[in-house]
């Protein structure tokens, strides 16, 4: 996200020098974003207080804030938070492992690819959320059905990207490895796998975001615990400020998960970001 913004600003500021552009951006970014948040909150508060927006539909920001505080101070909230977090993490880890293993098998074997191709196309076209009722029926209302949902929705980008990475290895580099009498195993571990890592990690990042979607959708369809379940209950009880508060918590959860995986990505695929940097220098 920040990378794109940097590029835009660099482009606009090119004539005044990139250094000045960077400094300007570093200052204006946080200040501007905070300012915008304040404007939106104050505007929301005023519009609802003056009756322009109905409070049943859009709650006052101050009410959302107090709902957030009271939600966070209630013990049962953490039960739900823990359930959803477990669903997301277990689903994400298993989904990533399955996606990587199947993707690697398909990336290595042309025959396996030929056999699996129609299934891949079919699964790619399928809106995965429609599987939620099916999984509830099969795996019940507990955590299992949500984990399976998170797996089903998150493994696919990992699979596709692993396969694409392994089949897209530079043929010249393969030729070099063959000229050095490299075994198939060495070609895989020393060339194919590392050169696929940037693409694999892009898939893993998408998979993590989708795992959260999968778990929440599963909870919407049928659950007894979890933040999606809580959201459903508050919505049904017309506790609108709490609905907004939970939504905000879920957004924060998504952001935290993404930041963590971004950090891991930069550490593991360190050469990728460095290459980008030297390309823009």
């Amino acid at each position, binding site marked *: 996200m920040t990378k794109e913004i940097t590029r835009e600003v660099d482009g606009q500021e090119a004539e005044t020098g990139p250094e000045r552009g960077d400094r300007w951006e570093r200052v204006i970014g946080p200040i501007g974003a905070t300012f915008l948040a304040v404007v939106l909150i104050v505007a929301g508060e005023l519009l609802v207080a003056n009756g322009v927006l109905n409070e049943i539909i859009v709650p006052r920001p101050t009410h959302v804030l107090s709902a957030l505080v009271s939600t966070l101070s209630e013990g049962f909230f953490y039960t739900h938070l823990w359930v959803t977090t477990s669903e997301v993490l277990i689903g994400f880890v298993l989904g990533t492992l399955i996606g990587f293993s199947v993707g690697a098998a398909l990336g290595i074997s042309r025959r396996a690819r030929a056999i699996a191709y129609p299934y891949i196309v079919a699964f790619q076209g399928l809106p995965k959320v429609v599987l939620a009722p099916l999984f509830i029926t099969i795996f019940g209302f507990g955590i299992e059905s949500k984990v399976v949902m998170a797996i089903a929705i998150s493994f696919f980008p990992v699979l596709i990207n692993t396969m694409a990475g392994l089949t897209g290895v*530079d043929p*010249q*580099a393969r*030729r*070099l*490895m*063959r*000229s*050095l*009498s*490299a*075994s198939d195993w*060495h070609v895989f571990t*020393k*060339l194919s796998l*590392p*050169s696929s*890592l940037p693409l694999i990690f892009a898939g893993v990042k998408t998979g993590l975001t989708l795992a959260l979607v999968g778990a929440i959708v599963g909870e919407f369809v049928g659950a007894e615990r979890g933040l999606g379940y809580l959201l459903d209950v508050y919505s049904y009880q017309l506790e609108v400020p709490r609905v907004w508060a939970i939504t905000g918590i879920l957004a924060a959860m998504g952001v935290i998960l993404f930041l963590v995986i971004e950090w891991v990505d930069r550490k593991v695929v*360190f*050469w*990728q970001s*460095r*290459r980008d940097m*030297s390309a823009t220098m």
Partner: protein
Amino acid sequence: MTGPIASTSGVSEAGDGQGAARPMISTRDLSKSYETAGGEIHALDRIAIDVAPGEIVALLGPSGCGKSTLLEILAGLIRKSSGEVEINGGPPRPRPEVGIMFQQALLFPWRTVAANVLLPAELIDGRGQDWRERAESLLAMVGLSGWADKYHWELSGGMQQRVALARVLLLDPDILLLDEPFGALDEMTRESLDVEMMRIAAEASKTVVLVTHNVYEATLMADRIFVFTARPGRIAGVVEVERPQPRGIEFSTTPEFSEKVAQVRSLLSSGGEG
């Protein structure tokens, strides 16, 4: 330093015992054709080449003349269609005594400069670190001492090819197969690397086969230049350059050089018409 390889290079002692006069590389009636959707393509047609130990030869010709195909057959990367090929007394196959260098440096971005140089040893005996000292002395030889722990994005194109040169020299191959190794570099960088390559080849008396489409590069470096015609690749003629090795860049300003360039050019154009 060649200790770990000695066991695998027994091939050089085998053979028919013709002694020192036996060529390092030898092809007879070597042909290569590809089956494509549009029919059969003759890439190489009855190629006969002998390369003596320590000799530098150039394979020169227009693109599509099959010179790179010939090099890949010599390297054991693709199969011949018919004819005979012998490398160091044996059939062509990838092995430590034969080093091949490509137009791209092909450095792995996740490896440091030193780790890239060590790659061939790692693939052979799995213990790349034993070669660390040799890798560093090779890096010093190609003018990159102090760069061992850098990554390739910190290096210019010419420096990357120097790393690739150090990598190909790690296992101390007797034969160097060079597929336009400096073709992607600017003229001045290429010339300085050409001169360095000649010096290294002469010092360690390596046999070198250089594929190039650059008449000046071929004339500067090669003891003999095999001029190829385009499709099917045939040898139009051979130009000998008697100037002793290693040569410096000043050779390119001599009348002898111009004369050889002219000879090569006339062979190239006659081949083009035929």
